[in-house]
C-alpha cells in the first residue's frame, strides 16, 4: 500500500473508531478509522449500502456515530449541530431552494451568517462567476438545466469559504458527457481554492479521474485507502480488484511461497502461475489470481512475461483502437484480453487456440471467496 501524503500532511478530519447502526443489529459502518488531510480531494467509493453515504452524513452532522468520535480540526464534533460545523455540502438532487432566485440561493449561507445585503450580493456574484453562471443570477432554479443547477449548488457550498466541502454523488443525475465536463470543472475549482473535498460516488471512473485519494468502501469497512494509481495497479484484495477497472480472475491453490513476496499457484486446470502474494494465507490456501486485461499479452510477449497459459478464443469484438478478445482460460470463460491495433497483425478467430502471457509483477494472488467456489 503506497499511501503518498498529498500537498499538506496535517489532518483536517479524523474518524476514530466510528461505528454506526440504525437498528442495533447490523452495523452500517464498522470501526472506521480515517484521516482526511487538509486540502486533499478524498473520494468515498463503494456500491450502494456500503456505508459511504452514512459516513458522509455523520461528518455533515445529520447522523450521529453510535460509537467512536469524529474530530474536525482536532476537536470532537459530536455535540456540534450541522449549522455550526462550517461544512459546505452539495446534494445529488441539487437541493436549490425553488422559491429563491439563483442569487438568493447562493447568498443564503451569507444571509444566515448576518452579512450585509450589499456584500452578500457581491460575494454571491463572485461565486457565480467562478462557476460561469453570473448572467443567470435573476432566474429561478426551475429555469436552469441540471448541469447549471449543480453548478449553482457548488457555488452555494463554496460561497462562505468553508474549509471542507462534502459532495454526495453530485453528478449522479447528469448525462455522461456533462458529467465528464463537470468532473474537470470541480477538479479545477478544487485546485484553485485549495479547499478540502470529501466526495461520495459509486462511479469508479469518476473517483479515478478526480481524487487525490480514494477510500473504497464495502460492507461498512474501508477495503483500501490509496491514490487512484495505487488502487488500480496494486489492489489490496479481490473486492478492490473487481470494483476498480476491468479485471480477470483465475482460481487456484497456493503451491509454494517464493522469495520477494511472490508465490507459485496451481490453477484449477493444473497449470502453474507465479504471482505477487498480496493476500494469501500460505501454502495450500485457496487464492484468486487477478490481472488487468491490458497487462495480458497474446503475441507480443517477452521473457519477462513468465506466466504462459493456453486459451480458446470465444469471441472477438472490434473496438477501433483495440480489439477485445474473450477466451476460455483455466476454467474462466470470460477471460478478456485487449489487443492493441497493429497493421499486419492477424486477428484471432473464434475457436482458435492461442497462448496468453503475463508478468508475475502484474498478477496478484488475492483472497479467495469464502465459499471456495470458482470466481468469474
Amino acid at each position, binding site marked *: 500500500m503506497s499511501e503518498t501524503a498529498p500537498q499538506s500532511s496535517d489532518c483536517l478530519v479524523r474518524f476514530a473508531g466510528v461505528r454506526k447502526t440504525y437498528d442495533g443489529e447490523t452495523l452500517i459502518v464498522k470501526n472506521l478509522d480515517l484521516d482526511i488531510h487538509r486540502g486533499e480531494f478524498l473520494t468515498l467509493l463503494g456500491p450502494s449500502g456500503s456505508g459511504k453515504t452514512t459516513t458522509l452524513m455523520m461528518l455533515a452532522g445529520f447522523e450521529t456515530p453510535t460509537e467512536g468520535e469524529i474530530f474536525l480540526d482536532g476537536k470532537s464534533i459530536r455535540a456540534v449541530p450541522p449549522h455550526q460545523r462550517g*461544512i459546505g455540502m452539495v446534494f445529488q438532487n441539487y437541493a436549490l431552494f425553488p422559491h429563491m432566485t439563483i442569487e438568493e440561493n447562493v447568498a443564503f449561507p451569507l444571509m444566515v451568517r448576518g452579512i450585509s445585503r450589499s456584500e452578500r450580493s457581491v460575494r454571491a456574484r463572485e461565486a457565480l462567476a467562478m462557476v460561469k453562471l453570473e448572467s443567470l443570477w435573476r432566474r429561478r432554479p426551475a429555469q436552469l438545466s441540471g448541469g447549471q443547477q449543480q453548478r449553482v449548488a457548488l457555488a452555494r457550498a463554496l460561497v462562505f469559504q468553508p474549509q471542507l466541502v462534502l459532495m454526495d454523488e453530485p453528478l449522479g443525475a447528469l448525462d455522461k458527457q456533462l458529467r465528464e465536463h463537470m468532473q474537470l470543472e470541480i477538479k479545477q475549482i478544487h485546485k484553485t481554492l485549495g479547499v478540502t473535498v470529501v466526495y461520495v460516488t459509486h462511479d469508479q471512473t469518476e473517483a479515478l479521474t478526480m481524487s487525490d485519494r480514494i477510500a473504497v468502501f464495502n460492507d461498512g469497512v474501508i477495503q483500501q485507502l490509496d491514490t487512484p494509481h495505487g488502487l488500480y495497479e496494486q489492489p489490496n484484495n479481490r473486492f478492490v480488484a473487481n470494483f476498480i477497472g476491468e479485471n480477470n480472475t483465475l482460481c487456484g491453490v497456493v503451491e509454494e511461497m517464493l522469495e520477494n513476496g511472490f508465490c507459485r499457484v496451481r490453477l484449477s486446470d493444473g497449470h502453474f502461475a507465479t504471482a505477487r502474494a498480496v493476500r494469501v494465507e500460505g501454502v495450500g490456501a485457496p487464492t484468486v489470481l487477478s490481472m488487468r486485461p491490458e497487462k495480458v499479452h497474446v503475441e507480443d510477449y517477452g521473457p519477462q512475461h513468465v506466466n504462459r497459459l493456453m486459451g480458446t478464443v470465444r469471441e472477438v469484438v472490434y473496438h477501433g483502437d483495440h480489439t477485445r478478445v474473450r477466451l476460455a482460460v483455466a476454467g474462466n470463460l470470460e477471460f478478456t484480453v485487449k489487443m492493441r491495433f497493429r497493421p499486419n497483425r492477424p486477428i484471432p478467430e473464434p475457436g482458435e487456440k492461442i497462448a496468453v502471457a503475463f508478468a508475475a509483477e502484474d498478477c496478484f494472488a488475492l483472497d479467495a471467496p469464502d465459499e471456495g467456489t470458482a470466481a468469474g
Partner: protein
Amino acid sequence: MNSDTDPLKARLRRAERMRQVKAFGLIAPLLGFLLVTFVVPIASMMMRSVHDTELSAVWPQVSAAISTWHDRKALPDEATFAALAHDIKTSYKERTLSTAARRLNYDLRNGRSLVFSTARALPETADRWTDAVLTANPRWGDVETWGAVSRASGPFTGFFLLAALDRHRTAAGRIVPTPAEEAIFIDVLQRTFVISLAVTLLCLAMGYPVAYLLAALPPNRGNLLMILVLLPFWTSLLVRTAAWVVVLQENGIVNNTLIWLGIIEKPVRLIYNQIGVYVAMTHILLPFMILPLYSVMKAIPPSYVRAARSLGATPATAFLRVYVPQTLPGIGAGGILVFIMAIGYYITPALVGGAGDQMISYFIAYYTSSSVNWGLASALGAVLLSATLILYWLYNRLVGADAVKLG
C-alpha cells in the same frame, strides 16, 4: 410543400376535433347536471335580487304612472294620485292588497298600515284624487312615501342589494346609509368574515403541525394518523355538531373535568356563544386545511432543510426561510378552502352559537323561509357570492399565480 402541409393540417384538425367531440361527450352529462342544478338556480337567485314585479302585478296603473314623476322634490301629479286610488280600490276588492302592503312595508316603516288605512278611508268617487288620498292618509304628502312606490314599481330595482349593504336610496335618488337602529347586515357581514378568518387561522395553527407530522412519518404509521384525520369526514355534520353540544354544555365533559381538576369553581359557558362556534367550526373544517398542506409537504424532499442546515441555518431559520415558503401553496389552498366554506356555514353556528353569533347564511335562510322576502335573501346571497369570488380572485393573484411559477 404547401400542397403537402395543408391536407396534413386539415387532417390534424379533423383528428383533434374528433377527440374534442369525444371528450365533450364524456363530460356532457355532468355539464347538463351542473347547468340544471347549479348554474340555473344561481342565475335565477341573482335575478331575483334585482328583478321586482310584486307591486306592479297588483298595482299596474300607479306603477306605470309613477314613471312620469320627474321632479322628485314635489308630489306627483293628479293622474298618478288617481291611478293610486284606482289600484288601491281594485286590489282591495280583489284581496291582493296585502301583497302590495308587504312590498311597501320592506321599504317604509308602517307601510302596511299606511296601505290598509288608505284603502279603508278612500271614498268611492272624488273630484280631485290628490286631496282624497291625502285626506285618507296624510303620509301620501311625503315624497319619500312616493319614492318607495317608485322604487317598488319595477321591473328592475337596486333596492334589495342596497338593503343587503345597509343602504337605501332617497326619493331624490341619493344613496344614504340606513339609520343605525335598522342597520344589521354590515355587522352580520363583518361578523361572518371575522369568524371565518379566525376559524381559518385556528385551522392553520392546528393543522400545520399535524400535516408536518403526517408528511414526516413513515407510510405505515402515517396512514394510521391519516385515518384519524379523515374519521370526522365519515360522520355526519349534524352528528358532529350535536356531539359538541354534549361535550361543551354546562354539565358536559369539559366543564366537569375543569371543575374536577379545580381549575374553575362553577361551569363556564362554552356553548351558545362564540367559543362554541369557534370550537365546532374549527373541528369540522380542520381536515380541509390538513389535506392540502399534507399533499404539498409530502412533495418537499428532506434535502432542502438539510441543505439549509449544512449551509449554516439554525433549525428555526431553515424551517422559516426554506420549509415554510415552500408550503405556501398548501397554506393558500387550505386557507381559501376553509375560509370559503366557513363564510357559508349555517347549521353549526345555528346550533352552537348564540343569537349574536349568527352568520350571513342564517339571515339568508330566515328571509327565504320565515319572512319570505326572497328579494332580500337573494341580495344577501349575491353579496356573499361576490365577496367569495373577489376573495378567490385575490387568492389567485397572490398565491395561485406564484405557486405556478414555483413549479
